[in-house]
């Protein structure tokens, strides 16, 4: 144990002496933090819903690049040959190297939490112990994969190639870089077969205020454990201590075992319906004051009734973005949606009938609530944002006759800072919260787009 402790401390010391390791281990995570902070500014507070992704990227970098690069470099130099001459098992030294990497990544993650708070006032994890458990499970899974990479790579450049082969799919379609809610349905299913998704899920469960904690991430934790065990077993069976050793033919079944763990976890998740985006009518959002930004110029009377035809005619539609774009999109109809999305959007449409913000007595506020719900889906880049906007606008058209709706919408457009707006719509399945400013801006756009339709300037093809 004395030897392994000395090895652990030496590995940590050497890591902090290597400029490249410090840059990749600590400066790159800061870069990702700032980049995410710039991109996801609309959440309140910024990064609240992206910290799980950020931490997963940091773990992936340390485990799938940092550790195997160090191990392969040491193997090429003959360090592991020298270790083999020591009394005691080589396995102990491998575990020591993995524990050292765990501590190196843990420090980088703690640094990210501190910086996120300093820069964006992003809060620390809601369940710190649960977050530590989730972090440990993700680290275990990814360090196992890192060990496999170290055994498969014949030289340091090969580590980069293999690492990228794992890193990039998880970033792009694995729910790690691009959030799951912004992915198309097929990609969300693919993500279920990649470990990154489960790392983000487990980390978010203990990080987010009101999150379910460890109890709500049991499946994700088990998935990470299974993937980690399979990778560690495969990595240890393929262990190469000498640069001259070739990868044995017996390696193929062990590689297959590690990949089978990914596939098995994905299949179970798919069969148990865990790959769909959550949609829970009973989702707890707390008091309505928590989700509605306060009005700055409220008026409980019905001033919208005083809106004149001239004011309606004065509304300018020239600057509205196209319905098929990324800002304030509206689906032309729901017929072309994939089956999963169609089912989800139908559920959202049904939920609107009982959704409290859609039932408030003040018709203007009710319309604002509905329009800002569409804005929430839009700003959060929900994969079904256009279709959700479609059903919400249809619902609004059923709330009042066209003659009244023209004046209500014109009043909302002419008084963008009046009343209250929603900044989240979790009960409808929107994952995350946006800023009041973003909600008001997009609400105004949706109000104008709906007014165009009520005035007959735009016609939709499929739906009423």
């Amino acid at each position: 144990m004395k030897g392994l402790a000395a090895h652990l401390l030496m590995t940590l010391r050497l890591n902090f002496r290597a400029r490249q390791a410090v840059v990749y281990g600590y400066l790159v995570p800061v870069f990702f933090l700032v980049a995410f902070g710039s991109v996801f500014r609309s959440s309140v507070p910024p990064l609240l819903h992206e910290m799980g992704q950020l931490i997963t990227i940091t773990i992936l970098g340390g485990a799938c690049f940092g550790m195997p690069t160090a191990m392969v470099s040491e193997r090429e130099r003959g360090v592991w040959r020298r270790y083999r001459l020591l009394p005691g098992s080589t396995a102990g030294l491998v575990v020591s190297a993995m524990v050292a990497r765990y501590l190196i990544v843990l420090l980088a993650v703690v640094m990210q939490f501190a910086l996120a708070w300093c820069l964006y006032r992003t809060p620390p994890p809601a369940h710190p112990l649960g977050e530590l458990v989730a972090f440990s499970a993700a680290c275990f899974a990814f360090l196992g994969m890192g060990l496999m990479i170290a055994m498969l790579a014949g030289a340091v450049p090969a580590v980069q190639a293999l690492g990228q082969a794992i890193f990039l799919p998880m970033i792009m379609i694995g729910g790690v870089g691009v959030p799951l809610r912004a992915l198309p349905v097929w990609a969300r299913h693919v993500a279920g077969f990649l470990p990154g998704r489960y790392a983000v899920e487990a980390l978010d469960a203990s990080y987010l205020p009101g999150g379910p904690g460890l109890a709500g991430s049991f499946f994700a934790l088990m998935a990470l454990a299974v993937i980690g065990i399979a990778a560690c077993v495969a990595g240890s069976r393929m262990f190469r201590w000498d640069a001259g050793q070739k990868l044995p033919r017996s390696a193929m079944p062990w590689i297959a075992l590690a990949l089978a763990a990914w596939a098995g976890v994905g299949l179970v998740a798919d069969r148990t319906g865990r790959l769909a985006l959550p949609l829970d009518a009973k989702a707890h959002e707390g008091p309505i004051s928590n989700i509605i930004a306060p009005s700055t110029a409220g008026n409980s009377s019905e001033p919208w009734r005083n809106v004149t035809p001239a004011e309606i005619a004065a509304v300018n539609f020239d600057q509205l973005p196209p319905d098929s774009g990324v800002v304030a999109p509206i689906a032309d109809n729901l017929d072309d949606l994939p089956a999963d999305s169609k089912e989800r959007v139908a559920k959202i449409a049904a939920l609107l009938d009982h959704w409290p913000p859609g039932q408030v007595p003040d018709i203007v506020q009710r319309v604002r609530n509905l329009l800002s719900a569409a804005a929430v889906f839009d700003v959060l880049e929900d994969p079904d944002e256009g279709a959700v906007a479609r059903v919400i606008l249809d619902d609004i058209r059923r709330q009042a006759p066209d003659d009244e709706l023209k004046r209500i919408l014109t009043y909302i457009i002419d008084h963008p800072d009046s009343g209250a707006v929603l900044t989240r719509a979790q009960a409808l399945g929107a994952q995350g919260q946006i800023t009041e400013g973003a909600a008001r801006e997009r609400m105004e756009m949706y109000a104008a787009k709906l007014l165009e339709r009520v005035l007959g300037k735009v016609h939709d093809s499929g739906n009423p």
Partner: protein
Amino acid sequence: MQNASSSLAVCDLAKSYGSVQAVDFVSFEIAPGEIFGLLGPNGAGKTTLLECTVGLREPDAGTIEIGGIDARKNPGAVKAKIGAVLQSTALQDAMTPREALRLFGAFHARPVAPERLIERFGLGEKADARFETLSGGQRQRLALALAFVNDPALLFLDEPTSGLDPQVRRELHGAIRQFRAEGRSVLLTTHYIEEAHALCDRMAILHRGRIVASGAPEELIARSPSHTRLIVRAARPLDCAALAALPGIFSAVENGGAVTLQTRDTGPAIIELARHLEAGGNELLDLQVKKTSLEDVFIELTGETCA
């Protein structure tokens, strides 16, 4: 039959890589306080044999006993008693010699203090310098110091002077002789014949995985069927047939104006040669006497030249 007092006893050790028999049922023993050399051309199986012996590779067959312990059954116990300097082992660039000695010592029950090793191997000036700044000689001295962290009774040195300049090589030879003086045993592999001759008490010549000869260097030379060579140049051409017929001379071969004679009795042969030249009125211009060397023995046994 293995000697109970041997530091190392290897019996019928075999190791193959696919169809290549790298080590072909080799046996030898090393006595306490003995430097034993494994001499052979590149690819003879020296490093494979050494790596099997120290536990880096699993042999296909054979037994290895180190200090009376079965090395194949108790590799951990054996590794605590031996030290090794392997070919081409480096350390991490940022590690210092002092840190390396401390780290490797931590794996042993009674490590030698790093300061003692730093002093013994002349690493004082570079004790806290990064490995990447050490010269080749300093790296090799550090490798020897690392082999000493557990105060071993048996040292394995795999071509320890390969690639070093003559000055550093002489320093290391002195260090290896010092090990013997301390009563340690040494297994040394080398392809430098002079080094083997100068350092080893006994040696084995390895060729294609087999020991083709073993013994003390002088014994190997004495056992050689090769003869002393007399290389003669005279003022007028020499008659090889007449020279070969002289008493004590076995053969005479002309080569580039000189004639090489082979003999076992150098003194009488030179006297007969002088008489022969005088009788023929020929004048001796040059005479070189070349005794049988270890290199001759090596070439004779392996058919290859060494370093």
